Every structure is written in C-alpha cells, then in structure tokens.
C-alpha cells in the first residue's frame, strides 16, 4: 500500500519548494563559496571570460578594505551591549508582568507593540526625537530628548547631527535596538514563566524567601532554556544589524560629517554588490557566517554548563 504511487506523489507535492530552494538557497550557498575562493573574482571580468586562480586573496582583501574593521567593531559592540541589556530588562519586565493580576493583559499588549512596527519608520521617529534643528548655528529645537535632559538641569547633547561623537551615535542606536528587541524576548520569557510549576513558588513562600531570591534562585534557573534561546537568537540577529541604523541615520550610515561611521557587517556586504566585486562580498559573507557560527557555538557551550533542562 505504501508504495511507489505515494513516492512520486510526495515528490510532486514537494516539487515547487525544492525547485525554488535549489535556485535561491542551495545554489547561492555553493556559488558563494566558489566565488569567495577565486582570487580577485569580479562578476564583470568573469562575464568577459577571465579565469581566476584559487586562493584566499578575497578574504585578505575583505579584511584589509578600508572600513571592514569599523563595521566589525560596530556590529560586535552593538551585540555585546544590547543583547545582555535587553535580555536582563526583558527578564525583569516579564517577572513583573507575571507577578501582577489586574492590567496584566493590557500591559503585555503594550510591551509587544514594538514588535509589529516597521523598523525604518520608527527609526525615523527616534531620529526626530534626538534631532537638533539648527539654523545658522542657532539651536531652534533641541529635540524632545534634549528637552528632557535640560528640564533636569543637564546640557543638551548633539546626538546624531553633524559633529556628533561616535558614542553619542552609538547611545542612540543602543537605545533603539533595545527598544526594538524587547517584545520578542518578553514574549518568550513570559511564556516560559507561565509554564513554571507553581509549587516551586509556594515552597519558596513557606520558606520565607525574598522576591529577588525567588527570581534569581527559582525563576531564572527554571527559565534558563528560554534565556539561552533569546540570547542565542539575539546574537544571531545582532550580528545582522543593519536596517535599524538605516532607519535612524539613513543610508549614509552615520552623521553627515562622518558617513559610514556606523556601518555594520551586513552593510559592508551590500555596499560591495553594485561594484560587482563579488569575490570580496562573498568572502565577507562567509566571514560573517563564520562569526555567527562561532558565537552560537560559544553560546551553546556556555548554556550547556549553565542551563538546567
């Protein structure tokens, strides 16, 4: 009965998916590796019939190209700062949400709202909030964030305009990325907390444990698989950071005075495409893949030691 008829039927059902995957997923993987290891591979030259020697020239060129290290530094910094910060904040918010009765649903709805937004569009809102409008060096509007700072007696800061400092720019990006990363993490962590057996908490209450002790000694260990999950996906997503920066700074990827200052690894790869220097772009993409793989493996290794399943 379970026969040749089912065999070919199954392949017919799978045919559209397989064809598309072969063209747009499998072939790209193979081809990227091929292009990356052909020295100085260039699409234009390849069409012209030029052949290339095999080697790792592209990787060297990718690393030595002017802003590679800047891109790598920006990406790594954003990851290392925003992933732990947003995870911790999401953990606190989830724990708080999990402990309340009234308003829980309404507040959960609010906290998940940033998930459904367009990261370019809201990036433009953040840019407006941090922007200083000046005409002939006279500040007209300092921007709402600076207004708040001045209200508390501080000095206004040039966050994103021409002449702003690197760390001012980074601060804006860090705030925006954390704001953007919270909803997914809260959703996963809150879901995890709701499935923790209530008996643990009852036992802790009988023992008279404090709230923070309950959070760090019961909730966090029992939640550790979910925490590991959001940290790992956070790092993977973080290394692909790009659109949020385009949202705030535009395609200049930095303040007008220093374009490309905030560029990331993904931005680096895309910048190469129109110049058909595919060899370098492919090498950069493989480097990014390698970094993500290593970071994920480190994460898994750490979580193996720390996570209680």
């Amino acid at each position, binding site marked *: 009965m379970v026969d040749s008829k089912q065999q070919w039927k199954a392949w017919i059902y*799978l045919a559209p998916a397989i064809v598309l995957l072969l063209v747009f997923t499998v072939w790209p993987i193979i081809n*990227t590796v091929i292009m990356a290891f052909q020295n100085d591979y260039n699409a234009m030259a390849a069409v012209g019939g030029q052949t290339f020697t095999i080697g790792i020239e592209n990787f060297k060129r990718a690393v030595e190209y002017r802003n590679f290290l800047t891109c790598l530094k920006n990406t790594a910094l954003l990851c290392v700062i925003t992933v732990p910060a947003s995870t911790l*904040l999401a953990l606190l918010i989830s724990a708080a949400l999990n402990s309340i009765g009234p308003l829980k649903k309404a507040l959960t709805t609010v906290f998940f709202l940033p998930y459904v937004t367009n*990261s370019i569009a809201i990036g433009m809102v953040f840019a*407006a909030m941090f922007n200083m409008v000046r005409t002939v060096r006279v500040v007209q509007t300092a921007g709402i964030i600076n207004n708040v700072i001045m209200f508390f007696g501080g000095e206004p800061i040039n966050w994103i305009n021409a002449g702003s400092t690197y760390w001012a720019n980074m601060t804006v990006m860090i705030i925006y990325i954390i704001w953007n990363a919270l909803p997914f993490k809260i959703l996963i962590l809150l879901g995890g907390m709701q499935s923790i057996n209530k008996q643990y908490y009852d036992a802790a209450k009988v023992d008279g444990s404090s709230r923070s002790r309950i959070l760090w000694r019961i909730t966090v260990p029992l939640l550790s698989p979910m925490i590991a999950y959001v940290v790992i996906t956070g790092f993977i997503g973080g290394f692909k950071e790009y659109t949020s920066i385009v949202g705030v700074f535009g395609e200049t990827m930095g303040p007008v005075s220093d374009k490309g200052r905030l560029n990331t690894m993904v931005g680096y790869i895309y910048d190469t495409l129109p110049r058909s220097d595919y060899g370098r772009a492919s090498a950069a*993409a493989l480097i990014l893949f390698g970094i993500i793989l290593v970071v994920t493996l480190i994460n898994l290794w750490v979580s193996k030691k720390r996570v209680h399943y």
Partner: protein
Amino acid sequence: MASVTMKEQDMRSVTARSRAGSVLAKGMTYLFLMVMALIVLFPFYWMINSSLKTLAEYRLSVPTFWPKTVIWSNYAEAFTTARLGQLFLNTLLVGVVSTLLSLVITVLSAFAFARLEFKGKNVMFGALLATMMIPGELFTITNYRTVNDFGWLNTYTVLIVPFLVSVCYIYLLRQNFLQIPNELYLAAKVDGTSDFKYLWTVMIPLSLPTLISITILKMMGAWNSYIWPRLVANDAAHQMVTNGLRNAFKDAAGDQTNYPVQMAAVALVSFPLFLVYIFLRKYIMKGVSRSGIKG
C-alpha cells in the same frame, strides 16, 4: 499559655509586616511596569503629536505636548510627497501574491512531510532545516546575480519569487499537521477521498490558526522588507513602502526637513500595522512564539 499568646502575637506581627511588604512590592512592580510602558509607548505618542503640528510649532524651543492647532493636512501632504498611494499598492500586490503562492507551497510541502511516506523523507527534512542555520546575507550576493541574469531587476517577480519558500513555515505547519490523527487520513483513503479533498476539508480547517498566523507574518514581512527591495527594485514604479518612505525623506537629521510631514508619513505607514495588531494580536503572538521569527 503565655508563651502561646506570645507566639500568636509574633505570628500576627510577622504576617502584618510581610503584608505591608508585599503591598509595597506590588506598588513598586506596578510603578516599574508603568514607567517601562510609557517609555515603550513614547515614540508612538511623539510620532502622532509631531505629525499634527505646524512646522513653526514643531520648532518651538519649548515643545508642546499636544498641537495647539491640529494640522490634518500634514497627512495629505505626506501622502503625496512620499507617493504613498503607489507604494501601498505595490506593497499590497507583492504581499498578497507572495502570501497566496507561499501558502500553497507551504501546505503541499508540509502535507508531504507529515502524511506521505517516501524514500529520503527524513534526509530531505533534515536538509531543509539545516538551511535555516545559514544567514540570508549569504544568499543575497548570488541571488542578486541570478535575478540579474534572469532579467528580473525592477519587476514585481523579483520581489515575489525568491522568498516564496520559508522552511520555518513548512516546519511549523508540518508540526500542526502531525497532530491530526493518521486514522482520519486512512479512513478517508478507504472512503476513496482524494488527497486534495482531504487536505481541503480536514487538514486546512483544523490548522487554520497556524495558516492565519503564517499569512499575517508573511504580509507584515512584505510591508517591512527593506534590504532586498532596495537592492533589486529601487525604481519608482516598483518601490515598496519601507524603501519608498526612507527615500522620500533622505536626510535623517537635516535642518531643513519638514518633520511634521515626515512624521505623518511614518504614521501612515505604521497605522495598518497597528490595526492588524489590535485585531489579530492572538495569531501574531502565537505564530511568533512558536516559529521564533524575529522581526
């Protein structure tokens, strides 16, 4: 006797203290959540507030927290400045067509993996899952070249076809299909029901929530996609909404930018998403938490 009363008193004072402590803790918890909620909501409030001001009011050195005169015309101006009508239509067309095709492909593949027996099934499924580990950026370079060779640049096809198959959704739907007892399928077979009829009358209705989740996430994906459309279809005729919005207001931090109009455009792009969220929140949250798709 006396010692017993002492203990009771102790107990009472301890419970009173812990009750006071727990009230305080509750209050702190709510305070913390309210402050965080305000921070989360603030950009949305500021977007709407700014979008209704005159440029002069927007530029006041002391900001107003609600426009003194509400300027609705900003929205009309935004609609024309950013060519939002055209952008919405393009995005809707790409979103609807790619969602429909993607659903068909996903349902067929998930059915094959969940119900049919064939050689190499597990190997195929494993290979499919393995592709999920590889970052999309790795595909883009070759795909850019492929669509260029196909002559697809600046067409609707290039926005629809390359991303029709989502392994993640196939996986999600397969899991859902597996929960439907196999006996139903065998009984239908005995009755001589065709696979398609069985799919259409039993499996699809039973997994409707998952299909709705996939539809919404796919549509939102089209609405929010930026990198690929920007790369392959950046001409005026095929621009999608996110890309068009960014291009309409090029200098992010310029002094000349008409921010109220820009914020109105941003709001117009955001409102459809809010509506979907308000009415279909359940499906979005379920889909996201089960498939782990991160924005």
